[in-house]
């Protein structure tokens, strides 16, 4: 199997879709000549030309709005919002328009729009360029929400997002772009709404998203040396959620930790905890632990930034709490 970085995997999915399907095009700020601020779209302008790889003005509202229009007209646009922090500027289009048209029109129109965006701490971007806002969109019926954590997943899920007939907010994590991983030779679409069990275990399930999937896997190795067997599950699609896999895992292990880089309060972990306690109530042997960032705007100073966001040791500490004895 070939090895790709997470960045190359995103680019590969985009390129294959552009290559095979005339209705696909991409647009965003500086994605053409510059190749995007995260260099994801490098080389695409050269292959597909300026009509299908389009630079936009600096207006997230306009980017998403024109994407919605194109989607309704039968295209499969992929728009890039440079930082997910800037999604806030497009909320009207995303929440009140994209998410609503299909049901409000009684199915007469569809909005097959993919909104790619990225975020995440770890490189001192400050408070306005590193937020993890995925939970905001999980609250909106009519949207789908994806957060991929590996090269294989990001390629297969992006393909499914592009070909979903609903608007999909597709989250990538800034620090995962250089991450290398094996991918199938041929692109294999990964259905939306399907979780991935990264590692099987017996004592506690860590349900993690994004960067925290990797922190959880590191914590699981450390826990194993302490005699704690950890299962790591990545929902991959946050909306719709693969409740069956997640609840099933917790019913098996009887304990659960949720982990994401977003702040704990009102985070996606809260939704997971609610789903799990309901589905696995009689199987729970310990309170569900939540791991996430401290409730603070992300500091710029690297030492403070590292202190605010969660790491493998925080996941490990939570794992230990679930199996703790008095």
């Amino acid at each position: 199997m070939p090895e790709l970085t997470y960045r190359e995997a995103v680019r590969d999915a985009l390129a294959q879709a552009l290559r095979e399907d005339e209705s696909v095009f991409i647009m965003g700020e500086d994605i053409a000549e510059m190749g995007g601020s995260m260099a994801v779209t490098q080389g695409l302008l050269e292959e597909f030309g300026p009509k299908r790889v389009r630079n936009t003005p600096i207006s997230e509202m306009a980017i998403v709005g024109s994407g919605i229009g194109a989607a309704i007209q039968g295209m499969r646009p992929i728009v890039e919002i440079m930082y997910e922090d800037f999604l806030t500027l497009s909320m009207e289009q995303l929440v009140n328009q994209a998410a609503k048209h299909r049901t409000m029109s009684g199915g007469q129109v569809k909005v097959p729009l993919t909104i790619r965006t990225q975020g995440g701490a770890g490189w001192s971007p400050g408070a306005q360029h590193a937020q993890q806002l995925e939970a905001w969109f999980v609250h909106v019926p009519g949207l789908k929400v994806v957060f991929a954590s590996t090269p294989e997943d990001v390629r297969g899920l992006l393909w499914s997002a592009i070909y979903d007939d609903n608007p999909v907010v597709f989250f990538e994590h800034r620090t995962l772009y250089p991450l290398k991983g094996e991918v199938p030779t041929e692109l294999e679409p990964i259905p939306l709404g399907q979780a991935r069990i990264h590692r099987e275990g017996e004592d506690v399930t860590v349900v993690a998203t994004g960067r925290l999937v990797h922190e959880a896997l590191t914590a699981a190795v450390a826990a194993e040396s302490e005699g704690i067997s950890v299962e790591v599950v990545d929902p991959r699609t946050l909306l719709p959620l693969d409740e069956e896999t997640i609840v099933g895992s917790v019913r098996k292990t009887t304990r659960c930790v949720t982990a994401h880089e977003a702040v704990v309060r009102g985070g996606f972990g809260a939704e997971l905890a609610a789903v799990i306690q309901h589905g696995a109530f009689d199987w729970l042997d310990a309170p569900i632990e939540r791991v996430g960032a401290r409730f603070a705007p992300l500091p710029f100073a690297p030492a403070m930034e590292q202190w605010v966001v969660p790491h493998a040791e925080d996941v490990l500490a939570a794992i230990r709490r679930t199996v703790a004895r008095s």
Partner: protein
Amino acid sequence: MASEVKLPRLGQGMESGTIVRWLKSEGEAVAKGDPLYELDTDKVTQEVEAETTGVLLKIVVADGEVDVGTTVGVIGAQDEDVSELLAASQGGNGGAPEAEATAAATARTAETPSGSEPQSAMGDSAPSAGRTGERVKASPLARRIARERGVDLASVTGTGPEGRVIAEDVDSAALLAPATSTAPPVTTAAPATPSTTSEDIEVVELTSTRRTIARRLTEAWEAPVFQLSVTVDASELVATRERLVELMREGETKPTVNDVLTRVVASALVRHRPVNAHFSDGRILRYSSANVGIAVAAPSGLVVPVIREADRKSVQQIAAARADLVSRSREGKLKLADLEGGTFTISNLGMYGIEQFVAVLNPPQVAILAVGSIEDRAAVLDGGLVIAPTMTITLTCDHRAIDGSEGAEFLNTVKSYVESPALAL
């Protein structure tokens, strides 16, 4: 203005108490000083008096165990609206609403372990309406397993955080306990148990008094003890008591032999301070006056009310104090203060015809005297046999604080005083 009735701290170390029953009902007028409810603590059941005058508007906790400081009722003016007060107090009683101010949030995040937030403990402090006794902390999984296997959660020792019963605890308990008839058969080979059905077994829940007895006497068992016995001629003790009864005036309490004994033992104690002591926190605290505890069989279990400064009281004063303490013990109306501060204990089973016995220490006291019955026995006097009323007294000593010689010297003084009570003056 309505005021909350909060559970008072009646003595050092009191963390909680059990409300037995209310003596006033909702809507009833109460005056300051009126007995309001009965409170059962570790040591004693007593009536708690109202601190304000008004109408008992609300009984918040009708019965059951609550922490010190918990609002258990509200007294105020007739028809006063207390809903706001109650809402506020319920916040204070646990599960305080989280302050959402940024400052508070920042402070809280700064205190919590890196990258995680404590889960609310609301579930644990939720009232357990409709249940009797304390709510058992158990995980949902542990509860389900207990339900399926017929294990009584209250009998399982929790090893999870904060003593929570977790699945493994129930598993272990299920292996040890016989399955009840409703439970599916336990397939694991369980150790043989007596072939009794649950109907044969009378289950007695421990009162708080009984719990305290169990705890304190188990503690006492940790002390390395030795016992010393001596048989004494009780003729003078009995005679002294008879003379005192003759001298009794109208309205005075009739002294018992034990009252006289208490008095002379108190004199011996202040003369032998190593015996009149506490062993506590790795130190010995020797006392200059003798606060003598007397073991009383109360309906709820053994209690040991204290006769203070018995070395400075007359036998008549001791008798009066004893009569008051014993009658209040029987009625369950002792106060914590009646039970605190004892420096030595006398346990007398003579009235049951017990000739001799060994008493268990009453920590932190370092010695206890077990008094047997006074019987006419053959005794040797001046080389000849005589019949004399004698009794055997046995001193249990904590060897960490007292050596054999010290115990023996004390016991010899007691013997001298019993045989010649006038020496105790």
